[in-house]
């Protein structure tokens, strides 16, 4: 039972992180290397809010404020990234890639300057433990599961049931066709990057209290997210959800049964295998 809960909880970690990246990658076909740092900044913003506000308004409210501010800050960063990098460098994917890589280092350095290189920890807004059939689930993990579920259903509804969401999907599938319908593809790109980055921020806010936060936390998270979106199928947000679940279960079982040290290896191997057998990913559609 504990294993089932662990699978669920790990899946939600992966999902939370891969979602924004899958969206941005899927719609704009650009790799935002700073996505991991957006996540990290979301965590630091939350840390700052919790540290300064918790004494006055209490842990949970301070965390909530933190999550909202985190989404706003990272969303803004997404908008800046769009204006400053994606638009001027349109049609130069390599240049965009390098620029976002550079941005990731800049953000890392800024955070090191403000908060120092040493990892910090956000004191958990919810402390209790929920027990389910003899197994336990810490409340702070329940929070991540709820956040991941809310983000993915929210995103699903937004993309599938609203007009701006429909435009996002249109641009993802055929930017030129979208332009001809009178869709302002620039605005859609901007919106996508804002949403994707905002999700990274919220994810940082919810993951922050259950993991150590450090200026360097973005890198490993980004790597796993890449593996997930590649296995899930590039550009397919729902494929990313499925792949997050696959890795959530697989990684949990591996650490449970003594394979913990091979996790990085197996993930990379699975990715390479999928790339060679079905380059469009398990759930990807052919271009």
């Amino acid at each position: 039972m504990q294993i089932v809960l662990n699978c669920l909880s790990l899946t939600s970690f992966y999902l939370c992180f891969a979602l924004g990246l899958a969206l941005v990658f899927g719609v704009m076909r650009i790799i935002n290397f700073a996505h991991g740092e957006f996540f990290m900044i979301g965590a630091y913003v939350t840390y700052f809010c919790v540290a300064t506000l918790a004494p006055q308004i209490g842990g949970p409210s301070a965390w909530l404020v933190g999550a909202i501010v985190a989404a706003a800050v990272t969303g803004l960063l997404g908008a800046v990234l769009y204006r400053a990098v994606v638009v001027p460098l349109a049609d130069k994917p390599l240049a965009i890639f390098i620029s976002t890589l550079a941005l990731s280092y800049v953000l890392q350095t800024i955070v090191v300057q403000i908060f120092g290189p040493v990892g910090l920890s956000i004191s958990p807004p919810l402390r209790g433990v929920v027990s389910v059939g003899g197994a336990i689930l810490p409340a702070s993990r329940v929070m991540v599961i709820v956040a991941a579920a809310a983000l993915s259903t929210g995103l699903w509804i937004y993309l599938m049931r609203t007009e701006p969401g429909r435009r996002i999907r249109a641009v993802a599938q055929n930017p030129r066709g979208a332009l001809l319908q009178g869709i302002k593809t620039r605005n859609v790109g901007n919106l996508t990057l804002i949403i994707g980055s905002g999700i990274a921020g919220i994810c940082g806010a919810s993951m922050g209290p259950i993991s150590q936060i450090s200026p360097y936390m973005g890198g490993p998270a980004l790597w796993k997210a890449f593996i997930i979106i590649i296995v899930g199928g590039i550009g397919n947000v729902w494929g990313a959800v499925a792949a997050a679940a696959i890795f959530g279960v697989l990684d949990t079982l591996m650490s449970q049964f003594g394979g913990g040290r091979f996790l990085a290896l197996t993930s990379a191997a699975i990715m390479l295998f999928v790339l060679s057998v079905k380059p469009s990913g398990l759930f990807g559609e052919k271009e």
Partner: protein
Amino acid sequence: MLEAQDIVVEYGGVRALDQLSFSAQIGDVTAVVGSNGAGKTTLMNTICGLIQPVSGEIRLDGERIDGLAPDEIVRRGISLVPEGRELFPRLSVLENLLLGATVRPDPATRRTTLARIYELFPVLADRQSQKAGQLSGGEQQMLAFGRALMSLPKLLLLDEPSIGLAPMVEEQLISAIRDYSLENGIGVLIVEQNAMLALEYAQHAFVVEQGRVALSGPAATVRDDPAVIASYLG
């Protein structure tokens, strides 16, 4: 009326349109004839704002539209059914149509336009929740027309709409479009490989050769020109 005057378009310094001028009446069908590489697609894309001319002017009902963003041009009433259709293959037929109405947000207008398009192409109504990519070539072309009409254009640009279609289907589609344009007072600017067909349905026509207008006039005149017959209708 759409008027183009002395437009010049270059791809990396190479001229594709060389001081091209023409005009097309709203309410008429105007055919554009020309061999491969003459610059027809370039002309269509330039009118839509996908490509900016180096010099020259394009006016719609007297107002300059060159230099405007594509979405503004759609809003002003020009809609293109592009070469290769450019549908959204993994969106449903209905979603494709609704995206065509991006610049016409009023729900009531959308409903009536949609009803008219379903009337024109009943098969689209039957398939409305199917993915666009799963339609047959002819159905996809109908969808491309329907999507373009959803923006309530004054002028519809068609770039080789019949490519890859059986001659029967081709003829049906073109006559459907013509009837629709007559009913609604829409102008059509059509580029066709099958010049004979286009000239049959058009009131006006012009011939593009190497980025210039070589000949223009009533469709019947163009159709009877010996050079045209030799090059395009033979």
